[in-house]
């Protein structure tokens, strides 16, 4: 029952192929192309972190080996530090733009991190293999899954740590096949 379709590869590096799989199993039934797990064959996502608007860590999950294992306390500290740094990175902007965004992409020798801050102040941090250019696609999809399986879950309390089996499941089925 699997139907495979290939989409035009726009704005992405040519080495990256997006295959859209319409599967009766995918329970995330967003419309059209979003029903769908997007498999980006060359991408490896290491981890996903979510910070609430006060800088508190509300979600941390490793998907592939690549980062060190930290204690949960260390993650909390890291999140708090990053939250502060993020605010300063917009302050030290040398340009005159009025709406100054904070850090969006961070690169080290061994990983790249995409940070997406929503207009509500929630931050999504995606850690992946170095030199990934298309993490924007991933981060948007993670935001959508968050809107669906965290925000629409009546048992989730806003701003609190996310313990949502549905979110875990859909995130895994979206991110894991990337390797």
């Amino acid at each position, binding site marked *: 029952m699997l139907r495979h379709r290939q989409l035009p590869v726009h704005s992405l590096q040519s080495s990256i192929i997006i295959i859209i799989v319409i599967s*009766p*199993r995918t*329970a995330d*039934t967003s419309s059209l192309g979003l029903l769908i797990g997007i498999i980006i064959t060359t991408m490896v996502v290491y981890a996903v972190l979510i910070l609430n608007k006060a800088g508190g860590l509300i979600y941390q999950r490793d998907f592939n080996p690549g980062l060190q294992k930290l204690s949960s306390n260390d993650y909390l500290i890291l999140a708090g530090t990053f939250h502060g740094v993020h605010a300063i990175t917009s302050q030290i902007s040398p340009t005159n733009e009025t709406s100054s965004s904070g850090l969006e992409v961070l690169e080290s020798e061994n990983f790249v991190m995409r940070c997406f801050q929503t207009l509500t102040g929630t931050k999504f941090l995606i850690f992946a293999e170095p030199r990934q250019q298309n993490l924007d696609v991933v981060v948007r999809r993670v935001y959508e899954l968050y809107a*669906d*399986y965290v925000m*629409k*879950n*009546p*048992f*989730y309390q806003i701003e609190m740590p996310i*313990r*949502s*089996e*549905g*979110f875990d*499941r859909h995130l895994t089925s979206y991110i894991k096949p990337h390797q």
Partner: protein
Amino acid sequence: MNRDPSPFRTASTASTATSPTPKYANLTASTNLRYSLTRKSIYDRHLNRTKTSELSKSAFAFLFGEMVQYAQKKVYGVQDLEKKLNLHGYAVGQRFLELLLWRDGRTAKRETRILGILQFISHQLYRAIFQKQADTLEKVRENEDEYMISDNDPVVNTYISVPKEMSQLNCGAFIAGIIEAVLDGHCFPAKVTAHTAPNEMWPGRTVFLIKFEPEVLEREALRVGS
């Protein structure tokens, strides 16, 4: 047996004889309600106006979620919560049944057999509300009075993750309430409950267990006999 908690009336007054809907006696008599002179009242609008209209599933999910949260504040334990959701579903089911039968018009027929009514639920009713059929309809082998309708992915549960400490809860109790109302409306009184029964493909698979009252089975036996 009026389980309808609503002080409101639905616009559809085409009642099936058996439906436990409120009395409509004061509808025509002396109403003190004000109506806009320039706007059509609900009595002037065609009942099929919204037959095919759609809203976003998100809107429903948020509304349903808030309903669950509100109900949760006033209950003792999972069973009580499911009961509340069941009652909400019941109120919705009563009204849907009216609409459905009215829309069937002349082709509407009264289901008199257990299998008939269960098929009506898992096909027509399910399609009308959820745009799909229920996934299976089975008889419980051990118990004469029990049947099961299963739904691999109930619409109300799509975005819900039940916390571990409430693992017995299935918010599909709302749909169970809808089913119960429709059975009641057809004079097949029954208790309907929702149970999580996941399989590998469908982690949210839900079974609605329908347990008929004894009189239903008695009547069925008589009809088989005749």
